């Protein structure tokens, strides 16, 4: 133990030693899935866990888990898939899910518990952390060592490096900061989860999920974002046309969502989704701090705006000053 601790403290400074210090870490990844399929954000969380240890475990819970458990077991580096088959876990209710996370963590004596920093992970993990009496590190964008992590604060305007002094590290992971783990070649074993109470003082009633055949916003390689400059809801169709041409997804600024141009779940920013596509095209978006928080890690940023002074141009790799109602259809036509 003493040796491990010494190596670990050196590891913070030396990336070379860090690789060998991780052998004692035993991470558990909480898998998020929907309609019988594994979500890409879970594969990003597994990638983050693999930076802590070469061998990780995963927890899959719900009534329809067979295919998901098989997919997770096939991820190289996943050695154990712990399955809790019960309908109480179907909608990620924190009152049932957090006790399951706690029971699985204790039973497996895991050193780290990771989940995507999604609506699901954000809801469940702090409750589990509190029950375990440990702190949580939210929205991790880099793993420095077993106990040290980087996370953005102040809407991404600063990066904090934090060291957890707790025996169990609870982490939620920014999916765009870790590439999804490969889904072939692994041979993890599947086992049953420990018993946990499925009693809940709350119940799931219904959901209203926007249907779309476009790629999911958080995982799309191209995102076209629209702002207040679109002027009304119907005009958003020129963005959908451009996105379809590029095989991308459509997002929106808060202003556009508040004005009713686009549904809430398309919002990109500090309080909405974080995206980091290959190409982000900001159309009629001024570039407020809160919006930049959600897209400024995109590889290439294009801004189309009639106001040459708009702050978005300060982060855009390519800026086109002009009328979006002419430029966007022209762009769609010429692509």
């Amino acid at each position, binding site marked *: 133990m003493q040796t491990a601790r010494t190596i670990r403290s050196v590891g913070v400074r030396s990336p070379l030693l860090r690789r060998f210090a991780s052998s004692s870490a035993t991470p558990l990844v909480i898998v998020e899935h929907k309609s019988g399929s594994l979500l890409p954000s879970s594969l990003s969380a597994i990638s983050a866990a693999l930076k802590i240890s070469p061998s990780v475990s995963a927890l899959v819970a719900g009534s329809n888990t067979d295919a998901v458990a098989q997919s997770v077991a096939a991820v190289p580096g996943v050695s154990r898939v712990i399955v809790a088959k019960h309908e109480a876990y179907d909608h990620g209710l*924190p009152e049932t899910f*957090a006790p399951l996370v706690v029971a699985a963590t204790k039973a497996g004596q895991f050193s780290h518990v990771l989940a995507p920093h999604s*609506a*699901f992970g*954000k*809801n469940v993990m*702090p*409750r*589990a*952390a*509190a*029950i375990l009496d*440990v*702190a*949580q*590190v939210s929205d991790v964008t880099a793993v420095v060592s077993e106990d040290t992590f980087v*996370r953005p*604060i*102040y809407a*991404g*305007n*600063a*990066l904090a*490096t*934090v*060291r*957890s*002094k707790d025996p169990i590290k609870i982490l939620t992971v920014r999916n765009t900061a870790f590439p999804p783990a490969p889904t072939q070649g692994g041979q993890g074993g599947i086992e049953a989860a420990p018993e946990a109470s499925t009693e809940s*003082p*709350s119940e*799931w*009633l*219904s*959901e*209203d*999920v926007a249907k779309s055949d476009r790629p999911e916003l*958080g995982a799309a390689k191209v995102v076209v974002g629209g702002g207040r400059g679109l002027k009304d809801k119907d005009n958003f169709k020129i963005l959908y046309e451009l996105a379809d041409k590029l095989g991308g997804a459509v997002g929106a600024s808060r202003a556009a969502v508040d004005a009713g141009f686009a*549904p*809430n*779940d398309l919002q990109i920013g*500090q309080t909405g*989704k974080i995206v980091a596509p*290959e*190409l982000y095209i900001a159309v009629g978006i001024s570039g407020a701090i809160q919006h930049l928080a959600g897209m*400024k890690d995109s*590889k*290439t*940023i*294009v801004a189309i705006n009639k106001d*040459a002074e708009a702050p978005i*141009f*300060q*982060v855009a*790799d*390519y*800026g086109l*000053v002009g009328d979006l109602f002419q430029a966007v259809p022209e*762009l769609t036509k*010429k*692509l």
Partner: protein
Amino acid sequence: MSSLKVLVPIKRVIDYTVKIRVLPGGKGVDTNVKHAMNPFDEIAIEAAVQLKEAKKASEVIAVSVGGAKSVETLRTALAMGADKAVHVETDADVQPLEVAKLLRAVADKEQPQVVILGKQAIDDDSAQTGQMLAGLLGWSQATFASKIEVEGDSLKVTREIDGGLETVRAKVPAVLTTDLRLNTPRFATLPNIMKAKKKPLAKLTPKDLGVDITPRLEILEVAEPPKRSGGRKVESVDDLIDKLKNEAKVI
């Protein structure tokens, strides 16, 4: 149920319009700037006051953990319609788990049936405190709420999730956290600001509440994010397509 007592934890943060400055030496950010109530907490206060106006709540108690200036934030909450305030005074850096423990202690004293918090503070962006409090209390939780309806001894809450909305029924006692779309907070009027000065404001310390607030997370460094070299303008759509194809190679 017409007698819900509502506790609303609020936080004083750097105003959301301020462009923050990272201090040289990695010690933190410059906090010698304009502060205000965390925007999500304004929504929480508004939600609680609306419940009171609809005769669903009997009393709204605002609570804040922080330095002496948190009193200004509590006075704002009182001016918006909270009935009384509790200030847990400390200059220490109090992290979400410790804040949740302090709030549990305040809840033990005040005995609310509902606690409404913001879904995240815009300074640390943790999005943890409400969920942690619910876990410590063993209460039901409904986070990221965009609609709250009181139905008997339950709350029907519409939540913002990835891809859309979901609705849950949470039995009271419950902890809720607010999303942006829940409501538009009112402005405190001058007469209400004057009245707020006379409303009760109790002072406590973490020690009074018997809570150890030693941080579990050590902040080693606060750094500037990598700068983007933006600012290049293109002349036309053709020029843009050419640059994306041949220079950035993204299409």
